[in-house]
């Protein structure tokens, strides 16, 4: 399940962004050392493979909803955690860019949920101990299914936490958890079976591929990853707690950094000026709920920010129309200039 920009507060999004970006940097360092062509290719191909697989949705029996596999565990088994992480992260970036899956700010969360968790948690903590070094088919199957199910559950749980911390959705934590976990358990089992199938196919036809992964050393598994996980949640949690006591996270942080007074006053002056103009322009001034000190009114006191006033909306719609018109004008000019240049 891709986390989405619109459900995130800047602080939560930013915190996970920082964690994921840091991990990409670290993984890049780890993999750059032993880089050779054929591994680079393998990463690319496997990335493309997972990318394609993620585009195929299947219906989950009994739930009436549909899901797709994540491929995180498969990649980790084939490539080792560092390379798998880099590869998965690039898949997620491409999805965000071309298929609008999630969005840019949500990338941090998505990379964390769908790349970090399988590579640095599910694989070392669940898959490795169960699968062992040997190639017993039963252990392979158990490990694949257990690790991908737990990995997906952790990912889904993480989505719930990220959403709840952001405070955009009204869905109660418990309900959300109850909704997310069963679906992802089901997807996890399907994914586990598929992972096992592909792995045993590879073991029988192209055993060379499996060697790549066993060559990679596991990161000092439990410790590093658990620390990072906790750190991410802690940062996210703490910041959102702060943020939620100031309804506007970004303004709050800007204020803290630059010194709140200086920033607030010109902004407010501009505000008053513009508000005055707006009053004149407003189609339905009666419904203008704007009052002084609006930024301090919290959602609890009056759920509607002053900006929701109809005049505000009307004003913003006008901006929209103007922008569209300006764009069209620009385009016509460009078309004109290119045609004249051609002739």
């Amino acid at each position: 399940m891709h986390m989405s920009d619109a459900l995130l507060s800047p602080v939560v999004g930013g915190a996970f962004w920082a964690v994921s970006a840091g991990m990409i940097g670290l993984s890049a360092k780890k993999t750059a050392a032993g880089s050779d062509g054929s591994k680079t290719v393998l990463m690319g191909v496997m990335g493309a493979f997972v990318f394609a697989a993620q585009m195929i949705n299947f219906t989950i029996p009994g739930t009436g909803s549909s899901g797709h596999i994540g491929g995180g565990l498969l990649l980790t088994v084939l490539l080792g955690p560092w390379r798998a992480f880099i590869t998965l992260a690039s898949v997620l970036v491409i999805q965000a860019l071309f298929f609008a899956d999630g969005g840019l700010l949500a990338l941090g969360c998505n990379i964390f949920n769908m790349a970090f968790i399988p590579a640095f948690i599910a694989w070392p903590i669940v898959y490795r101990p169960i699968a062992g070094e040997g190639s017993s088919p039963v252990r392979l199957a158990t490990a694949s299914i257990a690790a991908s199910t737990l990995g997906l559950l952790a990912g889904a749980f993480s989505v719930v936490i990220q959403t709840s911390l952001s405070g955009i959705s009204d869905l109660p934590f418990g309900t959300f958890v109850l909704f997310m976990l069963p679906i992802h358990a089901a997807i996890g089992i399907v994914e586990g079976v598929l992972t096992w199938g592909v792995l045993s196919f590879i073991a029988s036809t192209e055993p060379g591929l499996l060697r790549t992964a066993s060559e990679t050393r596991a990161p000092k598994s439990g410790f590093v990853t658990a620390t990072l996980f906790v750190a991410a949640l802690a940062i996210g949690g703490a910041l959102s707690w702060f943020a939620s006591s100031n309804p506007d996270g970004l303004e709050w942080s800007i204020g803290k950094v630059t010194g709140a007074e200086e920033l607030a006053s010109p902004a407010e002056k501009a505000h008053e000026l513009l508000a005055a103009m707006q009053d004149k322009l407003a189609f339905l001034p009666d419904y203008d709920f704007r009052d002084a000190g609006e930024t301090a009114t919290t959602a609890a006191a009056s759920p509607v920010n002053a900006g929701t006033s109809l005049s505000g909306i009307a004003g913003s719609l006008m901006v929209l129309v103007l922008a569209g018109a300006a764009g069209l004008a620009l385009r016509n000019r460009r078309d004109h200039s290119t045609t004249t240049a051609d002739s």
Partner: protein
Amino acid sequence: MTDRFDIEALHSPAQPRPLPVGDGAAIVILALFILFVISVPKFDLAGVIAFAAFPLLLATATAIPLLPLVKRLVIASPFILFMAAGNLALDRSTAVTIGGLAITGGTVSASVIVLKTVVTLAALLSLMAVMPFHRFGMALRSLRVPEVFVTQLLLVYRYSFLLAEEAGMMQKARDLRSFGKRGKGPLVTAKLIGSLLIRTTARAERIYMAMSARGFRAALDSRPAIAIKPGDLAAIAGATALFSLIRSFF
């Protein structure tokens, strides 16, 4: 089942459009823009609408076809719509009354969620519609994104087409020698996926050989990362100022 397997949608623009700022700066501005949009509070509908001006301006000015964009948005959004519906259902406190018509807080916050999605994703997709992907990669390098990662991005992108091509060939081969339901069962399909992996890997290796034989390095370091120019910094600062203004006005 294959409702989204649409690799063609990945094509970068054939005719890249010139951008008024450097590619790196464009990406930074986009990120800032999204951050500002996301920072609009839960019930502030006007704030989001105002920001919608930017993707609209970009889309109309560069003549990006809107329909495919909207289609992408619809496909990408079931989760969002679900969450928005949640707000709609759960928050029934009246926020505004217009001529006796009560509008609930849920309605407002749900609209904000949906609109934020549309605005941020539209901005993202419009950028990809004007910037070819390899240029995007180069721009990431100029923003100091690690080389290994950028290389992977470019390869995954490139190999997705390869995979689709190979999958197409295999499907062609199978279709031509299977009749009725015979030869199209899940068992054959499973084997097919397995050999798709082998085939694509083999071909990708040879293509990689061809690329590196023509000067492509394991990474893209052969060309120095383009530094961000002062003009770009000014553009970023300008954009930030503008976004702040809009953000505080609406």
